[in-house]
């Protein structure tokens, strides 16, 4: 298929359909309402389900219901909406159901603003819901990558029977870029008959399935949490994804940045190179699991004097960067989170100052 020019939000909606997800429930919120406006027309064309729920709270449980019945399902929202869905996400994690949540982040806390932000890093990677609850989190840096990550998210959610989140900043949703959709229109869903409440007749079974998150017995609850932990450990072993930029030779500083922010950093790195200053970058594509070892290895290079986490937040990912670096090099943060994206010039200034 040839390239088409598409807005990120619309491309995300189309990618889900091409991944074989025909169930979409959502509640309007800026800056991602275009996904719903796209899918309300597109879903009927492919025999899919579109429903605007009465709140993000309800939408979260519409996903839980459909996922528990073994159906591929997804939603899109933005920061305050994800807070409301986080209750359902905790239940979906506990009940071990696959589902895909897209968060096109806006500024916070509270109502915050509607401009791009990356301030939901902690929420997505560490505090999405109550209990020992984690998501596999992927962060696209372009519309093309958003499409690929959405399409990868469904099989991954099924592999782990765990929700997957696509964490995009507002720019990813709002900007238009050329996109090429992968050839395959559909990835076959996994066989869910062993656990889904999809009807005994449907799976030709005499044994009923139960989708639940209540374990009153302490051993049973501990066992369920051990199962969840085993999945998180497996994600750490098998799903870490990142891109290294300008790290082959020596570099005086290392930037860690993701999403739209990393593209600005890349420009800054190119401009610094012209000035004869080499700076490398690790761009995490998965935020959980975080490429901690890879960040640490890159920081350990003898030429590297400083590691800088550049984010559109007041310093969240920097904590994971520091955990990866393990005190071997100084780690600091730079960023903004009112909605303005730091410019290459600002980044160059900060880099020069920090690497000394």
């Amino acid at each position, binding site marked *: 298929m040839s390239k088409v020019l598409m807005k990120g939000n619309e491309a995300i909606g189309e990618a889900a359909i091409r991944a074989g997800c025909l*169930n979409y*429930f959502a509640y309007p919120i800026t800056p991602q309402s275009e996904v719903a406006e796209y899918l309300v027309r597109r879903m009927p064309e492919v025999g899919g*389900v579109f*429903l605007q*729920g*009465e*709140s993000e*709270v*309800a*939408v*979260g*449980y*519409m*996903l*839980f*219901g*459909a*996922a*528990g*019945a073994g*159906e591929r*399902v997804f939603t899109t929202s933005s920061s305050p909406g994800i807070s409301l869905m986080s*209750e*359902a996400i905790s*239940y979906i994690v506990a*009940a071990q159901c696959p589902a895909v949540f897209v968060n096109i982040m806006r500024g916070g806390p509270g109502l915050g603003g509607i401009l791009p932000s990356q301030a939901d890093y902690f929420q997505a990677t560490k505090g999405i819901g109550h209990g020992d609850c984690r998501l596999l989190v992927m962060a696209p840096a372009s519309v093309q990558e958003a499409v690929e990550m959405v399409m990868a998210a469904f099989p991954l959610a099924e592999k782990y029977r765990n929700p997957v989140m696509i964490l995009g900043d507002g720019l990813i949703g709002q900007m238009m870029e050329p996109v090429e959709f992968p050839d395959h229109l559909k990835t076959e869903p996994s066989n869910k008959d062993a656990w889904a*409440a*999809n*009807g*005994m*007749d*449907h799976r030709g079974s005499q044994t*009923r*399935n*139960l*989708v*639940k*998150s*209540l374990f009153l017995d302490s051993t049973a609850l501990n066992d369920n949490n051990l199962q969840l932990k085993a999945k998180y450990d497996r994600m750490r072993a098998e799903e870490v994804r990142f891109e290294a930029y300008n790290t082959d030779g020596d570099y005086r500083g290392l930037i860690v940045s993701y999403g739209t922010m990393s593209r600005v950093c890349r420009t800054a790195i190119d401009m610094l190179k012209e000035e004869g200053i080499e700076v490398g970058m690790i761009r995490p594509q998965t935020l959980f699991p975080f490429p901690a070892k890879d960040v640490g290895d890159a920081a350990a290079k003898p030429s590297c004097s400083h590691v800088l986490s550049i984010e559109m937040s007041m310093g969240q990912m920097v904590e994971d960067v520091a955990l990866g670096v393990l005190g071997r090099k100084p780690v600091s943060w730079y960023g903004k989170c009112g909605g303005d994206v730091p410019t290459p010039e600002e980044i160059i200034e900060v880099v020069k100052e920090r690497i000394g």
Partner: protein
Amino acid sequence: MGKTFKKPEALSDAHTHYCPGCTHGVIHRLVAETIDELGIRGRTVGIAPVGCAVLAYNYFNCDFQEAAHGRAPAMATGIKRARPDLMVFTYQGDGDLASIGMGEIIHAANRGEKFTTIFVNNAIYGMTGGQMAPTTMPDQRTSTSPFGRNVEEVGMPIKVAELLAALQTPAYITRQTVIRPKYINKAKKAIKQAFTYQMENTCFSLVEVVSTCPTNWGMTPVDAIDWTEKTLLAYYQPGDYKVPA
């Protein structure tokens, strides 16, 4: 002479955890009989609430999902939209449905979602130990209204069937009780009717069942039945509140 009475196939052999004199067991049985009679056990998914009936799935022999507090109608919506061929019912108490889940039930009813809700109203929170519910009667004593429900402070009890019947979307909304055999027969008919409307894809259906909670009311089962009949049924009057055209 053949067997004339047996346990429905849709009921399991599990021993009950419900208190003596509680009506959940009777209501479970009526739902299970309905599932058997309509021959839908293999394509039924029940949704358990949070409350005493959270373990309802222990007693039913069909697929089940367990909701968060109040969210069963949203889950039922998700299932039914994605799999319209399934028969879906939520089983919810009054704290679950009429307090924390009021938004979900109103919007599901108003969208005309084609599932069935069994709404068990015993005018109190049971599992958490007898706190005041939105359905608690004026002056009724509970652990969080120890001097009786003060309607000046917290308003009058909510009549869910009347509230939902006021919506303009077609629906089957009825209120029943199961405290005596004459009521049980009517309640059975209503539950079967509700499932039948779902099966025919006609409309949303809700059966409110006025129930007892002897433990948290601090009454014997017999006194609880008398109080239900005299006090609850005077306010929560049984009958069909909305029937589809």
